[in-house]
């Protein structure tokens, strides 16, 4: 039985590796809270390569404009059609920013329109319960980025399943620290990452 491997998607444009500490932190949380067999290190995989199809949950982030190549669009379309799930986080936390504008455009071309995910969706109860929807980040609360709190996540659906989960909340900054530092938090702020992983594995 294969382990869950946290995979970060590389794409040609932009800065795909802007949150290098996130994978380790998410992996730590999955191992800490669940019995899901998880690989101790993540992997980076090119979105233009068929290798991306080996990792049914992909994490994509960045600050810069996102323009997929034709190969990236084709692989992503196959990935989503076969049952994969892409989690995209706007590292700018800025709905007027280059990442948000270009990424949502590109994703809509491949996966269809992104719509608000209801706060009652199963994602928010997949493991931990978030009755108010997606947890806010310190970046939102401190007024950084677009100085807005984004109460909802966006999603492209494939049937009744989320195929693309899109966040403007900047979880890439929120979760971008060494896992050992979780001990300084009264509430672990990576718990929502566990929900995303459990949802991807069970839905």
């Amino acid at each position, binding site marked *: 039985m*294969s382990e869950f491997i946290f995979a970060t998607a590389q794409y040609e444009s932009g800065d795909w590796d802007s949150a290098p500490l996130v994978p380790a932190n998410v992996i730590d949380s999955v191992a800490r809270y669940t*019995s*899901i067999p998880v690989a101790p290190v993540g992997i980076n995989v090119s979105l233009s390569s068929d290798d991306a199809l080996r990792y049914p949950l992909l994490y994509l982030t960045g600050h810069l404009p996102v323009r997929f190549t034709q190969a990236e669009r084709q692989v992503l379309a196959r990935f989503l059609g*076969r*049952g994969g799930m892409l989690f995209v986080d706007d590292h700018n936390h800025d709905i007027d920013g280059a990442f948000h504008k270009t990424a949502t455009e590109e994703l809509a071309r491949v996966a269809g329109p992104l719509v608000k995910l209801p706060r009652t969706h199963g994602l928010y109860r997949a493991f931990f319960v978030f009755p108010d929807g997606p947890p806010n980040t310190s970046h939102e609360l401190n007024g950084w980025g677009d100085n807005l709190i984004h109460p909802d996540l966006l999603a492209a659906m494939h049937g009744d399943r989320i195929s693309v989960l899109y966040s403007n909340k900047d979880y890439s900054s929120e979760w971008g620290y060494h896992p050992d530092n979780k001990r300084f938090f009264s509430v672990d702020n990576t718990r929502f990452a566990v929900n995303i992983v*459990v949802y991807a594995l*069970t839905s």
Partner: protein
Amino acid sequence: MPSRRDAGVPVRERALRGAALAALVVMAARILLAPVSVTEVMRASTTDLHPALVRATYRTVPAIELDAARTLTPMERDWLRALSRAETTVRWRPSRSLATLAVQAERSVEPGGGLAITMLAPRAMPIVVGDDDGIIDSLRTGDGALSIAATVTGALHVRTDDVAADVPRRDSLPIRSVVIIGQATWETKFIAAALEESGWPVVVSMRVAPGVVVGPGATIPLDTTHVSAVVVLDSVATRAADVARYVRSGGGAILAMGAVLSPAIASLAGVSPAQRLRGELGALTSSDPVNGLAATTFTIRDSRSSVLDRRGSAPIVVARRSGAGRVLALGVEDTWRWRMAGASGSVEAHRRWWSRTVASVAYAPLTIATEDGGLDAAPTAAMYAALGAPASFVTSPSALPKIVVDWLLVAVILIGLMGEWASRRLRGAR
């Protein structure tokens, strides 16, 4: 001195008289020498069988000899069998080589699965498969056996040039849930997806953390009124006792490697793991994608087990009966890779493979054909069973029928005698 004309007359008259006399002798010989039984044998062929059967029914005939150019219909077979039990000897022989055709149709235990049809016929025989609505497909047998799956309306009809087999309509099978028990992994998720997409009602029980299970599969009663099959994927088989009881009562179980390794449930599988093999590099996108998956070979501990698939010579999929149910030990691992990273069409292929794998063990209540009369799944075999093996005929085949020969002889006698009388009158003799 008599003229040449007068001299030839007596010779001609003697010849005509002799011909008439010879014909009379032949007729007498035919009457006196021919055995009584032979003269009373009725010869028939499949082209005129029905009137012959009617005649034989209303007029006692000691024997019927049938030249069969085709297999008989069930009615014809039954009629001949009835005559044979009423003291009419029935002999038959094929007038041409009759194909041996047998058809088996089983309702596939899959949602909307139609029939799994197996046909046995001589090598490379053209076969037409149809149902009450018309022709479904035209095929040619390979090595003598052919299996297809088809959705059939009413009865199934299979034809070769001279043999027709018909299988009665079958009741549809009730499809119940498939319970998937395993850890929250890609394998569990994509097996559930494949089965759901195939139309199976799927109930999952995915273990996420100690005491945390996703899905209602942990509580559904495991019995044949609720569940068609159970797929157990991990070694922490929380419901091992339930699964064992369910299988004994007729249910089907698929035990993946994790379950085969579990002491609580391994005894059901009748195998023990032998060697773990890596998938063949690049095979996932080839025509044999299962070879691209990692697999564990088995050592078989139950001699009644059947090996369904091998890697090299080592078994990787093994089936056996356990109580009234069926168990399949699956050595192939991480089939989700086939779906996600396989060639074009791999999603459908993965879905079909899992649906058929589950169907091969799923609980299927006994069904009875709803209309059996007049249908015939193995007509050649049924003909042998009803009439016995082909036999030599007592009457020898003649170029002309007996009645024609008799009339020819009468004509020869009449012409001979009339000619001889006319010849005498023309020359003035009395």
